[in-house]
């Protein structure tokens, strides 16, 4: 199974600002992405999901820095790669789709040329041939009359169409990994499903690994094979999707599921907001970062930070009381 692993993070740590007084947005995150599978990265705003993705892409800009850990792509640590080598990885081995399609396209370049430039960056190909391929990619992602529309500028397109073009640009070189950072958050609800469907189909077709960043648990349930739950810069629970929804062990995961709205519930259970606020990452609590908001917290939780502990084959939880929580529900 380990041969399926295409990307592995080990102890990733990304900090913004100086060593003292800076903010550690991602603190010791480790996980592996496997070929042909969709991994969802969930958590609330500020939990470090996007920073994790940008760290993988080498797109963290000062004052931010990846300060520790390994980003292993086929066993090669990208942190040791030079600028040129990293450029060769971005867009070619790893494609990324961003949150807001309205600002993600350059308004002064045509639709087609913004897809073609990905191809031209990585392959020795003429401009005309690259634009030809861009048209086929646009067709592939569901843009009607692609040959004509490739000559149009972004402001002629709706948000959904723009996101399709951005997806086409991200997959133009058939990457092994697609990272999608909240790809539907900025879109109309009616469009969200078609975009997610498209991402799913492309991932299946290319047998790629999809890292889907979202805070929408409905999306997770529909799309993911594996789920990583992040809280305050750390992964607190990792499980396959069934386990996560049916037997979550981390109190934060359970609280998150309690916040989700679901019409399938027979009884009109009131939504359960999580009390309190996420910690200030400039001064994180010494022990478990969720302890101040956790109704299961005991003295040990404030004393030491829990590490991820295995529960069964593909389930890991970072909680001192994980064994008791399930029974306590």
């Amino acid at each position, binding site marked *: 199974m380990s041969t399926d692993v295409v990307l592995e993070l080990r102890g990733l740590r990304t900090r913004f600002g100086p060593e003292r007084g800076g903010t550690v947005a991602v603190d010791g995150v480790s996980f592996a992405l496997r070929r042909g599978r969709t991994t969802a990265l969930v958590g609330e705003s500020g939990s470090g999901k996007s920073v994790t993705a940008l760290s993988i*892409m080498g*797109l963290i800009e000062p004052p931010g820095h990846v300060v520790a850990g390994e980003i292993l792509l086929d066993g090669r640590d990208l942190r040791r790669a030079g*600028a040129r080598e990293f*450029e*060769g*990885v*971005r*867009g*070619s081995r790893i*494609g*990324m789709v*961003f949150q*807001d399609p309205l*600002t*993600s*396209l*350059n*308004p*002064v*370049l045509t639709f087609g040329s913004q897809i073609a*430039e*990905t191809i031209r*960056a*990585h392959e020795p190909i003429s401009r005309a041939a690259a634009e030809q391929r861009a048209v086929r990619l646009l067709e592939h992602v569901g843009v009607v009359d692609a040959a004509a529309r490739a000559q149009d*500028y972004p*402001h002629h397109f709706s948000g959904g169409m723009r996101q399709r073009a*951005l997806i086409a*640009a*991200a997959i133009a070189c058939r990457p092994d990994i697609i990272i999608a950072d909240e790809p539907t958050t900025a879109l109309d609800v009616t469009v969200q499903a078609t975009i997610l469907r498209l991402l799913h189909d492309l991932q299946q077709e290319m047998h790629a690994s999809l890292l889907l960043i979202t805070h929408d648990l409905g999306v997770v349930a529909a799309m993911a094979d594996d789920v990583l739950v992040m809280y305050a810069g750390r992964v607190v629970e990792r499980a396959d999707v069934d386990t996560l929804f049916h037997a979550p062990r981390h109190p934060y995961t359970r609280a998150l599921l309690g916040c989700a709205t679901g019409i399938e519930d027979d009884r009109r259970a009131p939504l359960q907001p999580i009390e309190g606020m996420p910690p200030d990452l400039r001064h994180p609590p010494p022990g478990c970062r969720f302890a101040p908001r956790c109704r299961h917290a005991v003295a040990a939780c404030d004393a030491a930070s829990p590490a991820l502990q295995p529960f069964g084959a593909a389930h890991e939880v970072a909680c001192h009381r994980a064994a008791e929580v399930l029974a306590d529900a």
Partner: protein
Amino acid sequence: MGKFLVHRLLGVLPVMFGVSVIIFLLMHLAPGDVTTVLLGPQATEAAKTELRHALGLDQPLPLQYGRWLWRTLHGDFGVSIATQLHVAALVLPRFVNTMLLTVASLFLAIVIGYGAGLFAALRTRSIFDRGTMVVTLLAGSTPPFWLGLILVLLFAIRLRWLPVSGMTDMAGDGGALDVLRHLVLPAVTTALGPAAIITRMVRSSLREALERPHVRVARAKGLSRGVLLRRHVILNALPPIVTITGLQLGYLIGGALLTEVVFAWPGLGSLLYDSITARDMPAVQATTLLIALAFVLVNILVDFINVLLDPRLRDA
């Protein structure tokens, strides 16, 4: 695109009409009299009245203006009252000289401004960036006539590298090289202020463009640094840069005034100065119209370039 140009060029006419009316009225509102200038302070009232009648200055203002407009529309700019030369013959060589100074200054301002601005934007908060900001602040607030005098003192009088003044024209004895030698100091003097303003605009415009989300998306595609800068940063930063450059060109055309006086540069500026003091109406009208026309055409050129640069403007 053609429609845009036609539309804008038609718009020039009312602007020119307005400018000519305002200049005409201003000249008549200002105290002083051309007959006093021509005949001297000792002239009798009768002589003045006679001259006024001969020049047509005793007629009602609308009629005077109407006659001037009619002649001008037929390409006749009249005869300069002060010099008795045809205005066209008086203004045209001066216009060429001013354009020479203006284009040279603009070239300097663009080379300095675009270069320093780009370098500062790409090295934010570096010593170069901070230094550029201080220097441009000083350069932008230095009055050109003072700077001109300092440069003359240093390079012409102390070091004797360059001539103080005495520029004639291309056809003069020294030829093109002589013109170039005369051009250096006035061009540097005129260029410094605009160079400072352009530098700051290039820097801020590029920095703003660097922050846009689509730049990060473009980086995620693995584009090389050069392609990224050209296609996703500079191309997007250009419209405000083109606009400010055009404004500076407009400023240079008219604003070389003081520099021209300091360096005795035979351009429109010194002509305008002389004509206004002499109440030489036809010369003033022709000079200001020419400056205004150049200004308006530069603005149209700027808008046209911006439409080429930004497809969103094409649909508007």
